[in-house]
């Protein structure tokens, strides 16, 4: 079993009257890649700053390796940060920047040299040690910042939206590299981003946050396939979210019809929201479709067509299809019971997990 390295117990953070963190609880295990995902202002960076020690929690305990570290200053924590603006020291060159944390301790010149060169090799910047910071590109500065943060061999590396300043192509490249680096080093990464694609691509675990709360915790697949509520479903990927009600276990009603589904554990006739991902919907003929839809728009996106339309009851649908259709045409929309995900209103994560367990156990018995 992996060991817990960081734990938040009922962390509250206030700035004056405003509560930016409203009772955060989580555990971070050693050696995994975590992502704090949420829109700007949701408190994710504040969590990072509390872990790093740049700011204090107003209430609650921050545990590191089983010890309370609320009062341990930043320079005594075995945590290093890659800053959003990199914060590379402009009066030092690449080598001196990476060597900085080592020169603060009694490390011999020779050891410093080997370790700095190793760290630079790790981020594929060998040969850049004599460059000045303003002579290298943003992507290279990013790598120097990472090298400087890992040269100390921290237990946890915090990354505060480090890719946000890079262009699309470089960002994708760095996603692969960060993931590979994390697996090579075997240390815990806590990555903060508002980019759901980044989060899905890199993480072992994602914490979806909004308005100072963690809404859902889980693997990228869990969060994508089984979002807990409207916000998560909408924030992670694109979704069709329509209102309906639960007829019975495994039977949901929406858009004027009843459909088989794989969700259970709600009250009979409970109002719910239904999520179907655009890529799970197929365009077919009206007689083969689960629903009938009138096509409103069609956009060519390269790999697929993005089609929007509306059904007889007024719900709008977004579909990703590799086959083209005509604007104004009546088409059938087909989906399987597994494509439907039902969400209750105001369900807490604990209740959600508990409910899932009751019937997912049954399912595997069948």
């Amino acid at each position: 079993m992996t060991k817990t390295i960081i734990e938040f117990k009922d962390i509250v953070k206030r700035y004056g009257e405003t509560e930016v963190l409203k009772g955060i609880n989580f555990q971070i295990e050693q050696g995994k890649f975590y992502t704090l995902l949420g829109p700007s202002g949701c408190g994710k960076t504040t969590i990072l700053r509390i872990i790093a020690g740049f700011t204090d929690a107003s209430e609650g305990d921050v545990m590191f390796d089983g010890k309370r570290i609320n009062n341990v200053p930043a320079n005594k924590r075995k945590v290093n940060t890659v800053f959003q603006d990199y914060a590379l020291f402009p009066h030092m060159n690449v080598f001196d920047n990476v060597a900085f944390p080592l020169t603060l301790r009694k490390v011999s010149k020779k050891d410093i040299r080997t370790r700095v060169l190793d760290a630079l090799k790790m981020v594929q910047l060998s040969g850049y040690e004599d460059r000045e910071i303003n002579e290298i590109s943003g992507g290279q500065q990013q790598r120097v910042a990472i090298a400087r943060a890992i040269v100390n061999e921290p237990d946890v590396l915090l990354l505060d939206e480090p890719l946000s300043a890079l262009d699309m192509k470089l960002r994708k490249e760095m996603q692969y590299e960060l993931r590979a680096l994390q697996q090579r080093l075997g240390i815990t990464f806590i990555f903060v981003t508002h980019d759901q694609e980044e989060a899905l691509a890199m993480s072992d675990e994602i914490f979806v946050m909004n308005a100072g709360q963690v809404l859902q915790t889980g693997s990228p697949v869990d969060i994508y396939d089984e979002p807990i509520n409207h916000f998560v479903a909408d924030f992670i990927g694109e979704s069709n979210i329509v209102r309906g009600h639960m007829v019975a276990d495994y039977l949901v009603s929406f858009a004027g019809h009843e459909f088989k589904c794989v969700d259970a554990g709600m009250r009979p006739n409970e109002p719910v929201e239904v999520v179907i991902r655009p890529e799970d919907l197929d365009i077919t003929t009206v007689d083969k479709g689960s629903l009938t839809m009138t096509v409103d728009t069609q956009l060519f996106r390269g790999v697929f067509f993005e089609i929007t339309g509306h059904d007889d009851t007024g719900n709008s649908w977004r579909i990703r299809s590799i086959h083209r259709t005509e604007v104004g045409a009546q088409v059938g929309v087909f989906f399987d019971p597994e494509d439907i995900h039902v969400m209750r209103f105001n369900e807490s994560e604990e209740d959600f997990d508990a409910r899932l367990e009751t019937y997912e156990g049954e399912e595997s018995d069948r």
Partner: protein
Amino acid sequence: MKQGKLFYYIPYGLWIALFVIAPVVLIVYQSFFNIAGHFTLSNYATYFHSGVYLKMTFNSVWYAFLITAITLLISYPTAYLLNQLKHKQLWLLLIILPTWINLLLKTYAFIGLLSRSGSVDSFLTFIGIGPKQLLFTDASFLFVATYIEIPFMILPIYNAIAELSPSYVNASRDLGASGWQTFSRVIFPLTLDGVKSGVQSVFIPSLSLFMITRLIGGNRVITLGTAIEQHFLVTQNWGMGSTIGVILIVAMVITMLLTGERKEKGRTRHAK
């Protein structure tokens, strides 16, 4: 278009020509004439051979150095503290405010404070120390000069610290630096430009102080500024006065070069 641009050069050009170039040319020209009006290099010979002038030069540099050092020692922590305060602009304004008052007026105020039977002496008598000679001492001269120069040191340092991105400080702490290490390795080097311009704007005027040396220092400290004043107004030896003026200008240029921003390759502050 070109004509319009030329128009904007007029005030600047006039200013430079009348108040910078012409005086410097005149001073240099004057310095080659002796008191009888003959062209000669004797003024420079006198300066470099006379122990009195060299001693004055040394005095000027030494006192300017002391004033700068004391000012810096007080100003850096002050500027740093100001930046941490809540209403920092207000506190800064309070420090700058005295510079709006005429220098002579402030100096006379200090005479009132420091003279025999002045407020400070009365206080010393009251607490039992008894009256002391305060005015016309080195200490009072340094004290008043420092008081007058402090705002000029605080302002550039304050600005340099205010511009410093807090993430450098966070990064330094994060990487394991103690408070002192963060200051000496990151904060101070990155605000050095502010310190340099502060040193420039204090050291250079301090070289040619003469009024405070007379009114507060009681002419015990004779600097080059005093010498120039005496030559022009008392001995009427304009040539010698100009020579000392040239020496002062050279000293200023040297100071500027020493404290100026070194354009070392790549070490210039990166644009943000």
